[in-house]
């Protein structure tokens, strides 16, 4: 499907996935309803990460800082300045974008694996900063956004983001927007250049493309999505804490994307869903679920590096975006 607009099959598949998510809320029991809400927000995070890892070929180990920037950008303004929810969300995304501009300017100057080291380092500095400014962020302990803060007026209605139904549909709306943006963007000329950079950066430069600028924009878009996920997470679930800035939260999207399939549009959702349930089930039996996370990472990369959808695309469904 190179160079052609998204085919009917692609549109149909994504439409079917979104429709299934829309219908699932009526049949799912409350517990799984809650989990799926969380998974959709985290899938937005993973989709943002996938743009960088899957399509641009840049491995970052610092995306927790963009997630946390969104979380704090929304949380702090709503909590301390009593901003309304939509404004808080926007400020979260802007915080992520601003951070990505600084980090991108610095980190993209490196070549190869140094990018991963530098992003991880900046993420750790960001994490320490959230601890250092404990007067506002309350550090590890974090703070809770009360139900009053999470109400927003929409015309004559007042929507409370603490309501499960509203929460689910808000998460679905955000995920839908990001998924469609990702499908469209990856097929656009810009997305094609990014894939060319992933495959061979020098050759892309020789073809006359400004690879630094393209990578920079990819990082901005990726960070904006991650920050949107962070802001939504804070506003929907009402808790903001520095745990979300730890290295563990930088590794999670990597795991989800690799499991679902890097450079596939639906891989992030599938990966996040599988991992969330796997951890949920495992933690019923053992506290050492991180051991399994580690094992899965090693097994994936050794025997199954393309992930679920990536392998499926290779073997059967070549049209899969």
């Amino acid at each position, binding site marked *: 499907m190179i160079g052609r607009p998204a085919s009917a099959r692609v549109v149909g598949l994504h439409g079917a996935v979104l429709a299934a998510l829309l219908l699932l809320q009526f049949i799912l029991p409350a517990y799984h309803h809650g989990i799926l809400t969380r998974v959709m927000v985290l899938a937005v995070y993973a989709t943002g990460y996938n743009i960088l890892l899957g399509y641009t070929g840049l491995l970052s180990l610092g995306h927790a800082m963009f997630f946390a920037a969104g979380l704090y950008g929304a949380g702090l303004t709503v909590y301390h300045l009593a901003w309304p929810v939509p404004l808080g969300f926007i400020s979260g995304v802007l915080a992520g974008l601003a951070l990505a501009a600084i980090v991108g300017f610095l980190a993209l100057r490196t070549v190869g*694996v140094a990018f991963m080291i530098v992003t*991880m*380092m900046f993420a*750790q500095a960001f994490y320490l900063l959230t601890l*250092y400014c404990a007067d506002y962020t309350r550090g590890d302990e974090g703070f809770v956004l009360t139900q009053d803060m999470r109400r927003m007026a929409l015309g004559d209605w007042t929507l409370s983001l603490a309501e499960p139904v509203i929460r689910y549909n808000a998460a679905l709306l955000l995920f839908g927007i990001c998924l469609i943006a990702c499908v469209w963007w990856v097929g656009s000329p810009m997305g094609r250049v990014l894939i060319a950079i992933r495959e061979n950066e020098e050759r892309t430069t020789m073809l006359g493309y400004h690879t630094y600028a393209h990578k920079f924009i990819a990082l901005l878009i990726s960070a904006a999505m991650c920050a949107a996920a962070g802001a939504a997470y804070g506003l929907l679930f009402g808790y903001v804490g520095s745990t979300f800035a730890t290295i563990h939260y930088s590794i999670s999207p990597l795991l989800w994307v690799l499991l679902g399939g890097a450079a596939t549009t639906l891989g992030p959702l599938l990966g996040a869903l599988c991992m969330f349930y796997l951890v949920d089930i495992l933690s019923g039996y053992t506290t050492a679920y991180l051991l399994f996370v580690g094992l899965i990472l090693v097994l994936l990369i050794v025997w199954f590096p393309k992930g679920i959808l990536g392998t499926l695309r290779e073997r059967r469904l070549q049209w899969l975006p």
Partner: protein
Amino acid sequence: MDFGPYLLLAALEGLVTAAVLALTALGLSLVFGVMRIVNVAHGEFFMLGAVLAWGFTSLLTGHPALGFALAMIGSPLIVGAIAWLAERLVLRRLHYDPEATIVATIGLLYIIQQLALSVYGPEARPVTAPVTFRIQFPWFGYAGYKLLVVGVSILFLLATWFVIARTRIGLIMRATQYDRETAQAFAIPVDRVYAGVFAAGAMLAAMAAVLIVPIQQAHYLMGLDPLLLSFIVVIIGGLGSLKGTVFAALLIGMSDGMISVFFSPTLAKILATLLVALVLVYRPQGLFGEVAQ
């Protein structure tokens, strides 16, 4: 206490941090230099070294120096064996692809950390220092062991330099680093060199950990800080440059130790990261790094 003596104390603390950091980062840099891969589990090898040191010292009763000597030998050997095994079982199958190796070593990080938690437990446990004498300055007394750490670290650094620059093993390593394929054509067992280098890198981290464990305590989460500091050091010094690594370790260790004494350890780490940002702006390849062809 006046400012002068206070500064001396801070400088001594910084020196201890720098010495141990230099050893740890050297291991990371060595592995990157020869194999062109980044070992994210490097900090966990450090942690394993410390935890095993606790194990060895608690095996022996009697003079603490005996147990410590056992730990100094046994702990790096076991960690080296584990690293060698991980290299043979996992990294070799990935053909040392840089990105895949990062993912695999992240997995390794989780596995080692979780196993340490399950076997060793969540407690931080102290190890008795092998020597207890104090050096009496006019203003304060200072633990002699800390200065011993600096001395031993320098010895290890010199030994590493000697092996790399003056022995046949070092020559083979440098040849592999310089051009893998030509080295292979000259009958150098590149495969085994890689396994050995990976194990050696982990052993350096383990040695550093054994040295530091009487000052810090052994804890299953202690690996992250040395990993991040080592990352800072190798980026500032230039990835793969051993000279740059030692120089940057001295710089970062000293500033980290001193800022920690005067202000807070958190601020010290944030400032070190900002220093990295500065280096990246003016010399993206690091202070001693060479521009990639």
